[in-house]
């Protein structure tokens, strides 16, 4: 039996073309970008070429791109860096707006800022996980520094009206940050058209290596640095530059850009087939927006069964997916994203996320469609619910 990977939203394998591009930078072109000699300058050139590729991806300038180690670092840097900067500039600003379905790294950064005296507003979402831009407009106060909204949910795939939110933030003169980890390389992003001031993207979600991320910072915005040292990345992010990972990140972005339209169509077709067939199972539901969702994301819930059991049964069949069930989390709490869409904890308990990617085939989707009903039937047999008394 061959294993089937359907958890591309968690992480992706490195594309062999990306690995090939990275390889020379491990043992041959290993220089430190800060060195004056040819070894260092070779690495520096590769870094700056990569920066240009990333700038072109989102219609930004190269000097507006800072490479980081991850999306988590970028999000921490964006929120904390801007909040601390705006407070230190004695503008008396202390308020940040986020949505209730942000990734943990934004939620926890906001929590930390709260402990430092900042005020946080969490904008609710509707049953599809959608933010209403009007709510953001209403939430903005004179002391608001920043609005941070995730472009597409990593769990339920709902794509937010980012351009509209960006427009409101521009009108009201507050900064707008968005985490595009799940859309970068999948959906066209233009920071100018969308009025984005700060943007987070990640390498390992787009067939690049783990250990690289980026933060776009619109020219003129000042952030307080979180890492102090040698002054790399224009003084914002000290650390010896991870050139192999960044070269890989840039190569993976280039490939995504070239294949975006075709791949988006292919995945949408496969995903729609999956959704159509899985919803034939009795008492099954789709989480997230039925239309405005990531081309590679399907998130279901099945009444009367628990998600971790479901994931482990599928794993035994060689199929890898994920769940927002409380049982699968380190805190034993159900997914805050599913709860934010209005689901009760026991409904979130039975969630299953299937995320498709570059190597997903129709045969693999057919296999999932084939085995899932029987697994759910068996788990429901064990469950006290969903049976006639």
């Amino acid at each position, binding site marked *: *039996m*061959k*294993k*089937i*990977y359907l958890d591309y939203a968690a992480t992706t*394998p490195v594309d062999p073309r990306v690995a090939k591009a990275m390889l020379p930078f491990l043992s041959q072109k290993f220089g430190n970008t800060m060195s004056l000699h040819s070894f260092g300058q070779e690495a520096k050139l590769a870094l700056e070429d990569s920066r240009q590729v990333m700038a072109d991806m989102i219609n930004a300038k190269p000097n507006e791109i800072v490479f980081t180690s991850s999306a988590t670092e970028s999000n921490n840097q964006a929120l904390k860096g801007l909040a601390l900067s705006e407070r230190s500039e004695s503008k008396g600003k202390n308020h940040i707006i986020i949505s209730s379905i942000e990734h943990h790294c934004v939620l926890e950064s906001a929590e930390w800022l709260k402990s430092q005296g900042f005020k946080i507003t969490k904008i609710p979402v509707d049953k599809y996980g959608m933010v209403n831009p009007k709510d953001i407009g209403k939430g903005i106060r004179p002391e608001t520094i920043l609005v941070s909204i995730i472009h597409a949910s990593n769990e339920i795939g709902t794509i937010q009206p980012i351009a509209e939110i960006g427009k409101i933030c521009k009108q009201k003169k507050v900064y707008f940050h968005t985490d595009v980890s799940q859309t970068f390389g999948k959906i066209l992003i233009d920071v100018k058209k969308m009025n984005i001031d700060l943007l987070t993207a990640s390498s390992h979600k787009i067939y690049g290596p783990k250990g690289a991320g980026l933060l776009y910072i619109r020219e003129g915005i000042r952030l307080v640095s979180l890492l102090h040292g040698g002054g790399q990345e224009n003084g914002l992010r000290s650390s010896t530059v991870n050139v192999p990972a960044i070269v890989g990140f840039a190569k993976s972005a280039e490939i995504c850009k070239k294949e975006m339209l075709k791949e988006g169509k292919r995945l949408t077709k496969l995903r729609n087939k999956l959704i159509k067939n899985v919803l034939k199972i009795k008492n099954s539901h789709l989480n997230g927006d039925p239309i405005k969702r990531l081309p590679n994301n399907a998130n279901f819930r099945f009444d*009367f*069964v*628990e998600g*971790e*059991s479901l994931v*482990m*049964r599928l*794993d*035994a069949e*060689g199929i890898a997916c994920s769940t927002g*069930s*409380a*049982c*699968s989390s*380190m805190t*034993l709490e*159900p997914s805050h994203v599913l709860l934010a869409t209005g689901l009760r*904890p*026991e409904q979130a*308990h039975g969630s299953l996320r299937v995320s498709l*990617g570059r*190597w*997903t085939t129709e045969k*693999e989707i057919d296999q999932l469609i084939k085995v899932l009903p029987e697994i759910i039937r068996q788990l429901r*047999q*064990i*469950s*006290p*619910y969903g*049976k006639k008394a």
Partner: protein
Amino acid sequence: MAKKLNTCSSLYTPKVMATFKNPHNFGRMKNPDGVGKIGNPVCGDVMHLYIKVAKNKKREEIIKNIKFETFGCVAAISTSSMITDLVKGKTIKEAMRLKKDDIIKSLGGLPKLKYHCSVLAVDALHKAIEDYRKK
């Protein structure tokens, strides 16, 4: 991306996985002598245990039959199945002495985060016996 199948899990022991995939004594019991229904306030798992009580040759009360229904994770389902195996045929006195650690040991261990599932199983059993005694 297709890879060769590898069934090991660093989360659960082989015994837990085997029990989870092939649980014993599940389903609803008709006319049980005692029922223990319990919900886990920590994670939301729900367990129902049904017992049938009879007397052995020494006139001691024994758990003649036991069944479970569980809405929960791998640990909840495997501990449910294990507790039914451990107490089936035992006297009520013996069953009452069963501790969560006995279940964990029989399963070859559980992740610390999942210990509460074994507590759930023991609590459900106690509730079922209590229910029987009330009748």
